[in-house]
C-alpha cells in the first residue's frame, strides 16, 4: 500500500507543478504592466520602474515562478491590485459560498442517485426501471444552469418557498445562507444524480451476474446477502470513479450556476478579475480550482486502492 500511496502522491505533486507552470507562463506572457496599472497612465517612467523593482517584476521568470510557488505554500497568493486586498483572503471569502455549494450538490446527488440506481437494478426490466432510466436520460441532457432557472420559476416565483437569488453571509444569518444555497445545489445535483443512477444500476447489474455471486449463492447465501457481502465492493469501483470526476466538475459547475442565482462565489470573482485584467487574482483562483480538481482525483485514487487490493499492485507497476 505504501509504494502505491507514494506513487500517487508523486503524480499529484508533478501534476500540480506542471499546472502551476502552464498557468504562470500563459498569464505572464500577457501584455499589460501591473506597475503601470497601479500608478495610472500619468506616472513617470522612473516611478513605474521603481515599483516594478519593488514588486519583484524585474526578476527573471524562473525566480518569480519559484517565489510565487513558495509564497502560495505559505498561504501568500499575492496582492490583488484592483481590489487592494490579499488574493488569499478574496478567494477564501468566495470559497465560503462555492465549497458548501459543491459539497451539498455532491451529497444530494448521492442521496438521490444511488438509491434510484439500486432500485432500478433490483427491479431490472420492470416499469420502474424503464421509467427511472428514461428520467435519467433526460437528467443527463439538462444543462444545470437551465434547470436552475426552472427551479426558480417553480419554487421562487410560483410557490414562493425560497429566494430566487442572492446570498446572505454565513455570519449574518446561517439559516438564510442555507436557504439561498438550496435551489443552486439541487440545480447542480440533478444531472449528476442522473449519471450516478445510471452508473450504479449498470455496476449492480454486472455484479449480480458475476461468477463469485453464483458461488456465494451456491454456498447458501440469499441474493441480498451475496450482493452485500461480495458485490458491493466491486460495484463501488465504477461509482467511485464517477464520483471523483463529478466533484471536480461540480466545482467548475458551481461557477456557471452561481450566475443564475447571483451568488458571490469563486466564479463571479474570476469573471470580475478577467474583465479588470487582475492577473494575479485570476492566476490564484485558477490554481485553487486546479488544486481542488487534482486533490479529488488523488483522493479517489487512494480510495480505489483501499477498496480494491488488486490495484495497489497493478496500478503501482503501471
Amino acid at each position: 500500500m505504501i509504494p502505491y500511496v507514494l506513487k500517487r502522491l508523486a503524480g499529484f505533486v508533478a501534476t500540480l507543478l506542471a499546472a502551476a507552470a502552464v498557468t504562470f507562463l500563459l498569464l505572464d506572457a500577457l501584455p499589460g504592466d501591473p506597475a503601470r496599472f497601479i500608478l495610472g497612465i500619468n506616472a513617470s517612467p522612473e516611478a513605474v520602474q521603481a515599483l516594478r523593482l519593488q514588486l519583484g517584476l524585474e526578476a527573471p521568470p524562473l525566480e518569480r515562478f519559484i517565489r510565487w510557488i513558495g509564497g502560495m505554500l505559505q498561504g501568500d497568493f499575492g496582492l490583488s491590485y484592483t481590489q487592494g486586498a490579499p488574493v488569499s483572503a478574496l478567494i477564501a471569502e468566495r470559497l465560503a459560498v462555492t465549497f458548501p455549494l459543491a459539497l451539498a450538490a455532491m451529497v444530494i446527488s448521492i442521496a438521490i442517485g444511488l438509491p434510484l440506481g439500486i432500485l432500478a437494478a433490483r427491479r431490472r426490466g420492470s416499469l420502474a426501471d424503464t421509467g427511472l432510466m428514461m428520467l435519467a436520460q433526460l437528467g443527463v441532457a439538462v444543462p444545470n444552469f437551465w434547470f436552475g432557472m426552472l427551479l426558480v420559476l417553480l419554487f421562487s416565483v410560483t410557490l414562493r418557498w425560497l429566494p430566487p437569488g442572492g446570498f446572505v453571509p454565513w455570519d449574518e444569518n446561517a439559516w438564510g445562507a442555507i436557504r439561498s444555497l438550496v435551489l443552486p445545489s439541487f440545480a447542480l445535483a440533478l444531472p449528476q444524480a442522473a449519471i450516478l443512477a445510471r452508473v450504479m444500476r449498470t455496476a449492480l447489474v454486472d455484479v449480480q451476474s458475476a461468477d463469485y455471486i453464483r458461488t456465494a449463492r451456491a454456498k447458501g447465501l440469499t441474493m441480498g446477502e451475496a450482493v452485500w457481502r461480495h458485490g458491493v465492493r466491486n460495484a463501488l469501483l465504477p461509482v467511485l470513479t464517477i464520483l471523483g470526476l463529478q466533484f471536480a466538475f461540480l466545482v467548475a459547475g458551481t461557477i456557471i450556476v452561481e450566475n443564475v442565482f447571483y451568488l458571490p462565489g469563486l466564479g463571479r470573482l474570476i469573471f470580475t478579475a478577467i474583465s479588470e485584467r487582475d492577473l494575479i487574482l485570476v492566476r490564484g483562483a485558477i490554481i485553487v480550482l486546479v488544486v481542488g480538481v487534482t486533490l479529488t482525483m488523488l483522493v479517489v485514487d487512494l480510495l480505489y486502492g483501499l477498496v480494491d487490493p488488486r490495484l495497489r499492485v497493478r496500478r503501482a507497476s503501471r
Partner: protein
Amino acid sequence: MSIRDHWAGRALRHPSFVIGLLGTLAFIGLALLSAVWTPHVVDRVNIAARFAPLFGDYLLGTDHLGRDIASMLMRGALTSLTVAAVAVGIGLVIGVPLGLAAAIVGGPFEWLILRVNDFLFAFPALIVAVLITTLFGPGATNAMLAIGIFNIPVFARVARGGALSLKSLDYVAAARLAGLSSLAIARKHLLPNIASLVIVQATIQLSLGILAEAGLSYVGLGTQPPGTSLGLMLRDAQSIFLLHPHLAMVPGLAIMFIVVSLNLAGDGLRDLIDPRLRKEGLPRVAA
C-alpha cells in the same frame, strides 16, 4: 442476405436508435437550413414587436429586442453544433494519433502521454476557457479550443485502449513480420478497427460539447453577440425570464432535445456495432 441488409434491419428494430438518429438529423437539418433561410431575419431588432407571444405572427414569439426566437434558435443551433463539432475534430485529430502512438511505441513515450493525459484532466473545459479568455478575449473560437483541449485526452484514451487490445492479435504480428512499419500498421490495421469505438465516443463528445458550449456562452466566455448560440440565448433570457419564461424555456428545451437525441443515437450505435459493449452510464460529465 447481405451484411448491409442485416445492419439496416437490426438498426430499424432498435427504436431508441431510430428516434435518436431522426432527432439528430432533424436538428442538423434545421441548423443547416438557417444558413440559407430563416422565417425572419436573424437578429433584426424590432422593438415594436418585442415579447410577441408564442404561435402568433412569430411561431416561437420574440425576445426583449423583438428578434424572432425561431430564427435565432435555428442559427443558434448552427453555432452550437459547429462549436461542438470542431471541438470533436480537435480531439480526434490530436487525441487519436497520440493514443495510437502510445499503444504502439510503449515505454517512456507511453508513460509521457499518459501523464500529459492526466495533466489535461486537471483542467476542466471551463478553466481552459477562463485562461484562453484572459489571454485573447472571449469568443466562439475560445469555446471550440477549450472544449477541444478537453476532448484530446478522452480520444487518446479510447484509441490507446482499443489499440492495446488489438496489438497482441495475430494479424498485427503477421503485418509486422511482413515488414510493415509501425506507422503503416497503425494506419492500415489498427485505425480501421478502432474506428467504431472512436465514432461512438465522438457522438458522446458531441452531445457533451453542446452542453459545454451552452455553459460557456451562458457565462460570457463563448459565443459573443451579434452571433447567437443556444447558450447565448439563455444568457440574454437570464435577467428577464421571471417575467417571460418562454425566453428561457425554448432554448433550454432545444438543448435537451438535441442532447437526448445524440445520446440515444450514440447508445444505439454502440449496441449495433458491438453488443458486448451494451453498457449504460459511461462517464458523462460536461463543462
